């Protein structure tokens, strides 16, 4: 029998891995992180993500406090005409803003916002905890389900009926029922489909919005709080904690597979041949990599292989980073507007037409954009999230990347005439690149679609919920587990609790 060196070996130093490592190490356990890349952080990187939303209290408390400041961030839906809609999350001001476009929309907006916030809170409470396991016959699992049912019922009969009506609905129907402003519809629909494989008219796009609201402090299209300093700050704070908690970190240490003895994970083997042993192994990798590579198909039951094969994890978001020599002039935008989340998504149909070609792995000439101006240093940049960029593009990404970048810039130039003169350099990171460079199969932000069949106790796959895999001693703590991705660290926190319970 091998000597047990570590209490926990964490594969992958993404933010969930770091959160998980800190919580376990705080209990005087020896923790090692093996990160394949040269630096930790994974997708919590400004190359991929525009904003890091506020971290839930339950996560910061478990780590013992995180020294982070938050800034409010409003949303601005850009209009070619210059009549932009600005939302900041204050209902009085937002009401007045929307009144300029439509009195009816303004009143309806308050109702819609209140309703969605309440639903997101109801779901959110359920999301913070580890999900119940079905068919486990455990009392606490039934209690959790009961609590969700109870909370949903306590919303009152009217709201309950509304919740039941909306849970499988598409966002387009709901928005068209409420609002007449196409621009307002476009903004909210954009937030509902971002990061998913859905168009605004796809069933289930509403639950994606609720999920995203829940991880953004129950508000999203109105306004959010983002971490000051962004992903760099977030990760460096977590890394500081790691060194305080004596977490060992190996970078450029790509794990080949799990070492298995007597049907239990006992360690990992790195690609350089090194073997490390630990009592528990925790994978921050996506479910497909965890099962196919780490655990190995030869150690899986056929039914599990089938479920992993059906796991939906194709990314649809690309990231374009433009390094600027000067700040472009956006039509009718002041400095506050430039600091907001600028969204180019003029209508629901605009998004849907954009979504259509992506179903066939083709590109749209008019993509949906979320633009973030970084202007706090000498080298300003525009970080642009581009939806829908297929995972594997028809004709190969390498052949069409340049055309795609040009079409994105052309769109922006409709709102900022001088954009082309401001650009020093441009880099496009496609879902395919995310897969290769960040080791996420499918290049999906959330390591798997946020949809009813892949949520709660079904996330990532039935039988693997509650952060355990089908192999004893191997756990998962990444975005592929409940509740999902979005830079909140809940998966990492919940996984740590489960592992500590077993250690």
């Amino acid at each position, binding site marked *: 029998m091998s000597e047990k060196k570590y209490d926990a070996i964490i594969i992958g130093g993404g933010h969930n891995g770091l959160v998980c490592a800190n919580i376990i190490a705080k209990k005087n356990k020896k923790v090692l992180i093996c990160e394949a890349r040269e630096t930790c952080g994974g997708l919590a990187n400004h190359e991929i993500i525009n904003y890091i939303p506020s971290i839930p209290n339950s996560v910061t408390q478990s780590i013992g406090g995180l020294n982070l400041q938050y800034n409010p961030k409003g949303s601005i839906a850009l209009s070619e005409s210059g009549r932009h809609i600005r939302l900041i999350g204050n209902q009085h001001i937002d009401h007045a803003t929307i009144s300029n476009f439509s009195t009816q929309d303004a009143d309806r907006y308050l109702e819609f916002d209140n309703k969605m916030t309440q639903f997101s809170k109801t779901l959110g409470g359920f999301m913070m905890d580890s999900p119940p396991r079905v068919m486990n016959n455990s009392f606490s699992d039934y209690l959790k389900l009961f609590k969700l049912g109870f909370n949903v019922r306590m919303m009152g009969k009217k709201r309950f009926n509304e919740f039941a009506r909306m849970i499988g609905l598409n966002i387009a129907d709901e928005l068209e029922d409420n609002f007449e402003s196409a621009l307002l519809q476009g903004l909210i629909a954009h937030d509902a489909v971002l990061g998913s494989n859905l168009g605004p008219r796809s069933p289930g796009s509403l639950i994606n919005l609720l999920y995203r609201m829940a991880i953004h402090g129950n508000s999203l299209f109105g306004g959010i709080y983002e971490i000051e300093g962004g992903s760099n700050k977030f990760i460096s704070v977590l890394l500081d904690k790691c060194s305080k908690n004596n977490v060992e970190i190996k970078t450029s240490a790509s794990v080949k597979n799990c070492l298995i003895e007597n*049907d239990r994970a006992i360690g990992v083997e790195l690609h350089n041949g090194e073997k490390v042993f630990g009592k528990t192994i925790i994978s921050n990798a996506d479910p497909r990599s965890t099962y196919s590579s780490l655990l190995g198909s*030869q*150690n899986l*039951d056929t039914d599990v292989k089938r479920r992993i094969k059906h796991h939906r994890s194709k990314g649809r978001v690309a990231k374009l980073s433009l390094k600027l020599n000067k700040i472009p002039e956006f039509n009718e935008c002041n400095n506050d507007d430039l600091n907001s989340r600028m969204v180019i998504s003029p209508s629901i149909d605009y998004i849907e037409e954009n979504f259509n070609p992506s179903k066939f792995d083709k590109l749209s000439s008019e993509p949906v954009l979320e633009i973030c101006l970084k202007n706090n240093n000498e080298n300003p940049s525009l970080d642009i999230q581009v939806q829908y960029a297929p995972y594997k593009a028809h004709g190969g990404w390498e052949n069409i990347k340049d055309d795609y970048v040009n079409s994105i810039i052309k769109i922006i130039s409709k709102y900022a005439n001088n954009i082309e003169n401001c650009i020093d350099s441009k880099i496009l990171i496609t879902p395919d690149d995310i897969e290769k460079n960040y080791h996420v199969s499918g290049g999906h932000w959330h390591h798997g679609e946020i949809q009813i069949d892949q949520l709660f106790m079904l996330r990532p796959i039935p039988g693997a919920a509650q952060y355990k895999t089908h192999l004893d001693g191997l756990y998962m703590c990444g975005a592929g587990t409940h509740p999902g991705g979005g830079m909140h660290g809940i998966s990492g926190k919940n996984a740590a609790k489960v592992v500590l319970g077993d250690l």
Partner: protein
Amino acid sequence: MAIDLRYSALKKTPFHSRTSLASRTNHWYTWNGFTVPTEYSTVELEYTAARNGTSVMDLTPMGKYEITGEEAHAFSDYLVTRDLSEMKDNTVAYIIWCNEDGKVIDDGTIFKYSSNKFMLCCAVKIYNWLNDSAEGFNVKIEDVTDTIAALSLQGPTSCSTLKNYGAIGLESLAPFEMKEFNIDGNNVLISRTGFTGDLGYELWIDPKNAEATWDAIFDAGKHLKIRPFGMNALEMTRIEAGFIQTNTDFMAAEDALRPVRMRSPYEIGMGWLVHFKKKNYFIGKKALKKEKEMGSTERCLVGLDIDGDKPAHGSVIYNSKKEDIGIVTAAMWSPTMKRNVALASLRRPYGIKIKDNIFAEIYHPEEIEYRKIWAKCKVVKRQFYSPERRNKVPADLYE
């Protein structure tokens, strides 16, 4: 060869011209999309041939899958619960395979040609299961059901018949061994396997030689009580031998609608085929290990020796307090042993710890009326019939 579905939705086996000529009853049975005789003349005559002469059965509809490639051996070992790591070339093994819950999907036989080539035979189609299971293994799965014709020759004179036919030295073939013979210029693979619990062989041949082979074999065995043999007679011989039949004695895990109907190997008397000592993982291991450790096995499949001579078809089994403890899955009056036997699925501890005071409620049909019989049962070894000649090497020969 493409089959013209305008005339028949059912496929004909390469022996069809011969089996249809031999059929006196025109009773046919659908098996894996093929049509094969249920009985040729009378079930008693066919059964008697299997026990006293040579019975010949068309086995072609049997699902046959070729597993080839570098990891064929490792994959076969992973697929089934039995330890195949020591399996030798040119041998055959009886196997079962399970799903992730450790519930049995089917049983069958696996033939090892070499470590790169195996053939799996079973009663139903399982291509998708094999293909999905093969992910992560460097193997190729091919359905060869239509490209291999198969005949089963069973009974005390089967070795002599095949020897007359041209299988020189066949008598030295041990049970579960196979050997390729060259007969009349054609390759014939013969394995000493069968489903009757007696001396017997199975022939695996090229379909284009099927008719000639059938004719030559009947010629070779005409003085050795040779007779074609249908599905009904097979059912009798397999019960006597104590062999289980999927979807008769237990529901295949993939077919069962009710999860409670699925059975683990321990529940159908196949625990001896589960080898946890195997070096590598096998499908269902996790669940089976848990079942073994927790002792959560609920049922058992046992042999019953029942008083009287009326077969207990579908009978409910009771304890002395008249509580329902199980059901008969297959029953018959055994003409060879003159015993009333049955296979029964019982709720543990009945059949394992409690073997006495068990009763069967038999409804015996007597011209539209039923006679109800309350018969005492004895739990016995499931293998009711196993003559010495079954495993004898060299096999018995007759002039």
